[in-house]
């Protein structure tokens, strides 16, 4: 593996700490990696075709998107009430509800639970929020084993890497790489690149863990306020294992995932699986409403829910930015993104890559670290077009560019507002606006530009990195039109 370029082979560089310069380097490196380009291109084409096949009826898709957007916006419009209702009903059902402002608090809560149970092993179902808070690192530092059990996450963890896609974490790896990884890292396993055999190896290793783990951890796809129910969407059955076999189940989710009514999950579940992987439905939809009751014979004796803010309440405070929170984490925006397809998920350096990552990460990490992210986009609009809950992603990217690049001011909507501000760039654009907004200024400027064209600089910021310099024409368009009269 060490011979591989580091983005594909062993990308162990920390996430959530990528400077603007490092981001440029990572993107450059990714774009110049032909293997990475090929595997993402193939995977994204596959996922786009599968999604399209799920929506043969345009009018059904339109109606389902409208319903799903409506449900998410309705839920957000009552978010504080729904969170309280959810908490009350979960508590009544016997679930312990915790609130965490940031990753440290969330990890401390879960470590506290692990310590109380003297837990040695936590087996994990797929949870992007647990990635967001760097849960595995926090547990490792405290001497508790946190083992991923989703096949993709297991592979990525075994390789010491991070997920490169929110739905398909190991999408950047070939089966040959995984075969080599298993042969190197799993005791007693010989090299095989037969996919069925590889999955059976993972099954054997992880079954042992499900059987003996002290605690199971999961994410939450939808939390239902009226019944106090946590819904999980999955194919493998590891989510059910983690939430059923160990004596303790901890679930962690962002505060935005709540819906009011149970029936609201029906359209959201349908559009989620079809948008994400092009499946009409996943193998399992798991609805958990409490710990094991006295007469029941299995299920965890304790269930905990950790509700995480981590910047979400900042997005919520602004009517436009609030739309970010409509997201149901399907990943369709990355599957259809020309930038994501070319640079893959690791280059962004954030837990959530792709278009959704670009609009959600600035709230989680602050614009000081993420001000370049909203510019990693062609604004082609594909993400907004496929979004199942109609998040206007391109519009939000433009808004975030503005927040990042405007001069710092009082009462900003976001932490880090103005982090990308440059006095020179700002001056240039203001001047440009003055010239182009007034015909007299424009006439004078264009006359000067054509006369002094030899002074056009040979290096023009990013433009000349891959193109010849711009040079004004010797005669203006208006002059040439006048000549022809």
């Amino acid at each position, binding site marked *: 593996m060490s011979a591989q370029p580091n983005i594909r082979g062993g990308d162990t560089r920390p996430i959530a700490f990528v400077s603007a310069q490092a981001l440029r380097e990572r993107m450059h490196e990714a774009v110049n990696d032909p293997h990475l380009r090929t595997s993402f291109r193939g*995977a994204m084409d596959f996922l786009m075709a599968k999604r399209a096949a799920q929506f043969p009826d345009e009018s059904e898709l339109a*109606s*389902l998107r409208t*319903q799903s957007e*409506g*449900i998410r916006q*309705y839920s957000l419009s009552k*978010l*504080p009430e729904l*969170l309280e209702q959810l908490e009350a009903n979960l508590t009544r059902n016997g679930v312990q509800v915790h*609130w965490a*402002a940031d990753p440290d608090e969330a990890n401390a809560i879960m470590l506290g639970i692990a310590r109380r149970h003297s837990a040695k092993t936590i087996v994990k179902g797929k949870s992007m929020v647990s990635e967001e808070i760097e849960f595995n690192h926090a547990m490792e530092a405290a001497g508790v084993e946190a083992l991923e059990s989703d*096949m*993709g996450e297991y*592979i990525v963890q075994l390789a010491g890497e991070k997920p490169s896609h929110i739905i*398909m974490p190991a*999408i950047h790896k*070939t*089966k040959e790489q995984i075969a080599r990884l298993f042969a190197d890292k799993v005791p007693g396993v010989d090299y095989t690149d037969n*996919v069925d055999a*590889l*999955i*059976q190896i993972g*099954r054997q290793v*992880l*079954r042992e863990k499900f059987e003996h783990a002290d605690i199971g951890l999961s994410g939450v796809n939808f939390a239902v306020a*009226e*019944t106090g129910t946590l819904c999980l969407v999955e*194919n*493998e*059955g590891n989510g*059910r294992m983690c939430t*059923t*076999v160990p004596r303790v189940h901890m679930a962690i989710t962002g*505060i935005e995932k709540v819906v009011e*009514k*149970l*029936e*609201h999950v*029906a*359209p959201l579940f349908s559009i989620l699986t079809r948008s994400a992987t092009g499946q*009409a*439905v*996943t*193998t*399992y939809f*798991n*609805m958990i*409403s*409490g710990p094991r009751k006295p*007469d*029941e*014979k*299995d*299920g965890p004796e304790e269930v905990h829910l950790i*509700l995480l*803010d981590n910047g979400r*309440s900042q997005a919520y405070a*602004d*009517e436009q930015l609030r739309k970010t929170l409509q997201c149901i984490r399907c990943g369709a925006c990355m599957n259809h993104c020309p930038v994501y397809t070319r640079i893959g998920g690791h280059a962004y350096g954030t837990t959530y890559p792709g278009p959704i990552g670009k609009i959600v990460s600035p709230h989680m990490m602050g614009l000081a670290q993420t001000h370049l992210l909203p510019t990693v986009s062609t604004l082609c609009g594909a993400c907004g077009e496929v979004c199942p809950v109609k998040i206007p992603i391109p519009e939000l990217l433009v808004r975030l560019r503005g927040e990042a690049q405007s001069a710092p001011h009082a009462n900003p909507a976001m932490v880090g507002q103005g982090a990308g501000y440059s006095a020179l760039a700002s001056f240039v654009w203001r001047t440009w606006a003055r010239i182009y907004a007034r015909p007299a200024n424009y006439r004078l400027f264009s006359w000067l530009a054509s006369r002094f064209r030899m002074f056009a600089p040979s290096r023009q910021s990013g433009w000349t990195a891959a193109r010849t310099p711009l040079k004004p024409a010797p005669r203006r368009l208006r002059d040439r039109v006048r000549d022809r009269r």
Partner: protein
Amino acid sequence: MSSRDRILARLRTSRPAQPLPLPELDAHYAPRARNESTPERVARFRTGIENFHAEVHLAGEGDWPAVLARLCAEKGVGSLMYGADTVAGRKLDPAAFAGTVLRPWAGSIEDIKADLFHRTDAGFTQTLGAIAETGTLILWPSEAEPRTLSLVPPIHFALLDARNIHATFYDAIRAGHWADGLPTNALLITGPSKTADIQQTLAYGAHGPKELIVIVINAEGAVQ
């Protein structure tokens, strides 16, 4: 001030004065309910779940235990675990199963974990119903029928009454008044466990059952 109170206070100061209107879901689902006959619904359910790699067998209300016994023999199931204290469980007669040992669930999972994980070939459960649109089974596990029966053994046999197939998930929730009281764990199951996490190649038997076999009763008129 706790994190809870701080988060809620922050949300309260910025939420809209009036909640947005409640979405009208009936408008979307009414045309999808279809006025199907039971055989039509069974056919749609069957196509759906077979697409997800499950096997479907039709049986009569009286002879389904014999069908189950035959399937167990065909698949070489040495031991079948089930909930004995259920309507279906009471109809299973160990004498009717030639090569298969019937094992009623006994005790709590902690008592039988090793047996369940290592020495049980198949689990048998009833179902609450199904969803025709996607070919999905609905399970409401109970104290008599624990949730791991449909999860841990490599083969899952499920008994479905065709009269309980709904057009959509939405219809099942509404018709069954689910919001009035859910069990500890309600489940939708569509096929055996699977993954496509290695190079988008589909593989069955990831962590749950490798095979899902559905026996449908009261499907009179459905194509055999």
